[in-house]
């Protein structure tokens, strides 16, 4: 759906984006993550031609964006930004339906669509006639999301959409996005610097640093097989990951009836390991082993070394994501 082919963007003497190649498949939520200034926002903005590549190609639905009219291209791509950017002189309804007006929908259809979208993002219908300044930050961003969805674009770009709201509301909005995404299945490119957000939402995570991609993979890959020191440190330093230190493997394992023998499983963790330690342990066991990560059984051992249950990589990673989702606000707890 979206493909980057060796894309480079130079601003003056700075290579903001350097030889970036990756793709986002249809219906997938791809997270671009990295420290500030790593080029992730510039990368996102090249999709709808708010920034034009210096070299390389960006393909949207198979077509080089430089061959498309930017105005039309943008109307077919939803766009949500951190500062929301609602039009302060327009009501919520007018804000949501701006693109529909550009597309010349008639007033009644626009109204109906606005009502539908407001419900989808979880706001009451009487909000239609309010002005943005009468809304809280979280409510404004819900309107921002509704506005991006208005013309039912199949692609949505989100640039740190929940970065400016407080942590509790942020978690709520993330979970709602997950719910909305499950319902509407858009192709989403999502920029963030918050690792827990990336794990919670991403089907696929692209880690960037200094304009380059340092790792492109699933959340599992990132946790269990960090491509290099940078990714490992980025993950370890994420304060959100602290939540993983309090959950134990014993809480997520399956006390299997047919316990696998240690010999059958190449991989093992201890039941008293925290999720964080389990990931580290598995990471070191994986080093040098070439195998897929899907459905690999992991034996869970007790103190004495006897098998007390089993789990899989997938299960562990799901537990990680759930830990983020249900933990409320990791940043505050820690």
């Amino acid at each position, binding site marked *: 759906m979206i493909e980057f082919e060796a894309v480079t963007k130079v601003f003056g003497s700075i290579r903001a984006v350097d030889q970036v190649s990756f793709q986002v498949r249809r219906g997938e939520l791809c997270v671009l993550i990295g420290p500030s200034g790593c080029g992730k926002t510039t990368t996102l903005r090249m999709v*709808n031609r*708010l920034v034009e590549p210096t070299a390389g190609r960006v393909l949207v639905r198979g077509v080089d964006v430089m061959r498309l009219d930017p*105005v*039309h*291209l*943008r*109307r*077919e791509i939803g*766009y949500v*930004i*951190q*500062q*929301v*950017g*609602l*039009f*302060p*002189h327009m009501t919520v309804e007018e804000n949501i339906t*701006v*693109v529909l007006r*550009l597309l010349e929908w008639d007033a009644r259809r626009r109204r109906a669509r606005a009502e539908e979208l407001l419900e989808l993002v979880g706001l009451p219908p009487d909000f239609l006639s309010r002005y943005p300044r009468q809304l809280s930050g979280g409510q404004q961003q819900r309107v921002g999301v509704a*506005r*991006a969805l208005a013309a039912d674009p199949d692609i949505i*770009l989100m640039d740190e959409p929940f970065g400016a709201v407080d942590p509790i509301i942020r978690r709520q909005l993330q979970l709602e996005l997950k719910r909305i995404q499950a319902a509407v299945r858009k192709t989403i490119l999502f920029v963030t610097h918050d690792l827990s957000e990336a794990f919670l939402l991403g089907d696929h995570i692209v880690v960037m640093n200094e304009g380059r991609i340092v790792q492109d993979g699933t959340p599992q890959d990132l946790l269990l097989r960090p491509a290099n020191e940078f990714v490992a440190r980025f993950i370890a330093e994420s304060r959100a990951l602290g939540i993983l230190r309090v959950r134990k493997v014993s809480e997520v394992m399956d006390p299997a009836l047919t316990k696998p023998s240690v010999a059958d499983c190449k991989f093992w963790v201890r039941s008293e390991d925290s999720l964080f330690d389990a990931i580290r342990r598995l990471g070191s066991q994986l080093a040098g082993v070439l195998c897929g990560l899907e459905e690999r059984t992991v034996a869970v051992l007790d103190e004495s070394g006897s098998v007390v249950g089993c789990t899989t990589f997938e299960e562990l990673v799901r537990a990680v994501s759930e830990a983020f989702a249900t933990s409320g606000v990791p940043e505050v707890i820690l």
Partner: protein
Amino acid sequence: MIMRFIIPSLGTVIELTWQHVRIVTAAVLLAVLVGVPLGILIHRARFLAVPILSGAGVLYTIPSLALFAILIPIMGLGMKPAVTALVLYSLLVIIRNTAAGLHNVPPEVIDAARGMGMSSLQQLWYVELPLALPVILAGIRVATVMNVGIAAVAVYIGAGGLGELIFRGLASLNMGSLLTGTVAVTALALMADLGLARVEAALRR
């Protein structure tokens, strides 16, 4: 020297006030027609800002009598040169406020407008101008009030208006005429100021 005190008839005052209002209104409307596009231009093409603003700035500093004198050989006497002079005086504040108003539109709002697929003109029409309107209007208000004052001098080139009362009062040593003219000009300026302030406040909400 004996000062007289003959108050001019109400009919005369109304007629001259109407003339005055016409001169000022025509001048402000023309100045908006010229100044707002120029303000948009310098907002979009920044390199033009210095030459255009300095040009308008120079016009602004020419004393009104001198400007009228310059315009007479070109346009003759009457309302035309008067309106022209007032337009030239108004340009600076209108251009500057238009550019300032556009400049104050939050960048994220512009980014959102572009990102959702508004063309450059649509951005201007649906987003930038509406948001800049209060500041543009503030400029129009300053220009209007200023013009009410300067238009009083335009009587020297035969444009009529309330300046006539002041001029006649001075010439014939009639304090009544002089004061009536002065009070009328002041009242007109205040009314214009308050009226436009109301509109501005309504827009800011």
